[in-house]
């Protein structure tokens, strides 16, 4: 579930409120807040769209986990999904561009062996 909106990084652009498919965020005065965490479906889309890498979605869908912003920054996790999709600054090739071997079933048949 969504665990962090970094107030240091957030530029109050409202985009997370707009893009969240399950309407988890509200604008409170001028900044976004996690208003309905229980509705978070852990789809990582807010994180992907956040233009300043201010958001972190933990993979745990049914329970809250403690996160520490400094650790997320030092481990490179904050913004890592946007980077992987290819939407981060200096991401280079996008996820689709890197996926050069698309025939999953054929690959499995040829190379798995077991």
């Amino acid at each position: 579930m969504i665990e962090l909106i970094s107030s240091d990084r957030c530029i109050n652009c409202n985009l997370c409120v707009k893009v969240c498919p399950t309407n988890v965020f509200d604008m409170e005065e001028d900044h976004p807040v996690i208003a309905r965490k229980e509705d978070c479906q852990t789809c990582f889309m807010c994180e992907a769209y956040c233009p300043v890498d201010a958001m972190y979605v933990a993979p745990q869908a049914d329970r809250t986990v403690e996160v520490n912003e400094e650790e997320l920054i030092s481990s490179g996790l904050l913004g890592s999904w946007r980077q992987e999709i290819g939407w981060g600054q200096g991401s280079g090739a996008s996820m689709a561009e890197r996926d050069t071997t698309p025939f999953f079933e054929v690959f499995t048949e040829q190379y798995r062996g077991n």
Partner: protein
Amino acid sequence: MLQKQVKQLTVDVLVLGGGPAGAWAAWRAASQGASVVLADKGYLGTSGATSPGGTTLLVIPPIAELREQAVQARLKAGGYLSENAWIHRVLDQVEKNLELVEQWGYPFPKDEEGQSLRTHLHGPEYMKLMRNVVRKAGVKIMDQSPALELLHDEHGVGGARGINRMTGETWEVKANAVVMATGGCAFLSKGLGCNVLTGEGLLMSAELGADLSGMEFSRQYAPSFAEGTVTRGRMLFWSTLYGEDGEPLVKGDRTNRSIPELLMKGPVYAAMDLADTEEKREFLRRAHPIFFMPLERSGIDPFKERFPLTLRYEGTMRGTGGLRLTGNDCATTIAGLYAAGDAASREKVTGAISGGGAYNASWAICSGHWAGEGAAHYAMSQPRRADNRQLVAAGHYGMAAGVDSSTKLEVQPLIKAIQDLILPLKINYFRSEPGISAALKELDTLVPHLKDQAPATVQGIVKSREAAAMLTVGRWMYTAALARTESRGLQKMAEYPELDPSQTHRLILSGIDDISISTESVPHAHELNALKEGHTV
């Protein structure tokens, strides 16, 4: 209802739903010269089952022999309920549309000879691209704007009403044609991207009298990392499954179908240890990054370490049932109402089995294209604009029905009660007559709550309709399951383990309070009946 200002618009075509099917429908309708509004509960670009992950496409080169092979294989696997002509249509259409996707800028990989390999789409990029395409086509996009009810008169559908979740403002769009592309119903089971899919489109359509088809083919669960949401069963083909004590259970191709039985006995773990070289691991990592990211964030290396599995219910999203289609243009039984993607029954192309893992993605593209075109032509041939019609709103369950009730609708407990009867493997996967009958009776006892007074908040209004839809879809599924006294494709009943050739037909459901069932014949039934009796498919 909240008494906020009403935003009113009139257009030719209203598309409900902003996943791939809705996006393609809106683009196609606009390309035909229709004025179009697309309203989505969430956001066109992030909504639905496709956008967070990705989707594998059904594409087969235009070589007659290859295509005929695929069609015949599907006919047999789908219990002879699919239609060869429809699969051929999909194969022809999807090729053209994917060429467009590439022209629009999607970076498909190329083979050694420079041919594009259009077999897989990464969700975030695909749906961001579709948003731009739809916008450039002149479609007005309304995000965070769930539809709550359809408008109609004696001539058929005439638009919809809904609410904006960000502003609380209600909206009303009048349109002579509506494309229902709201997805399937996955009962808030938290499969990746699926909590948007709660079935309101099916409920709204049924309130106008639309038929459903194939609702019994809904016994569909997908494996996921137990704590997470990402459902990518194909990755387990590279795994060994382990029990609590670390003993290996099954591996490779047998993993997926073994999981329900194994989970009934105890915890099940997976490790992708069949990927035994760096090259293989790198391929898998690049093909489905969304599968790996949550595991890695949890500190698990899935190639080396065992991770616990669960099954997430996928309802009619990866099941097959939905609104009954009556024509090549994806028309429904209601004049002006078209259905696309997972909101429509996919039996014509998938038969009795799941369309997951290729068929559904190509279906969304093609059915969206056809529904958008059909809706545009229908709307533009009408003698008058929709705002000159005497339209009334049809929403009843979980809304108008409870306006005068003194009992408050308690949404969360109602949703929990529905989930307790729909999600358990014991009831819905291991289907038996007593099990399904008892669950259906319980669901029926919840129906009176849909005539309680819905909460007057934006969330309360939306969630009341979601609850009403889930309850209704659940009752359709179990009603159909009891009516199909055999096992075929996704439908299995303990008492009837065999396919019964005399039931090679579709089950059509109508009604909400009282559900009636009829059958519809399928064009290839005689091919099965010609086989030896008792032959299992």
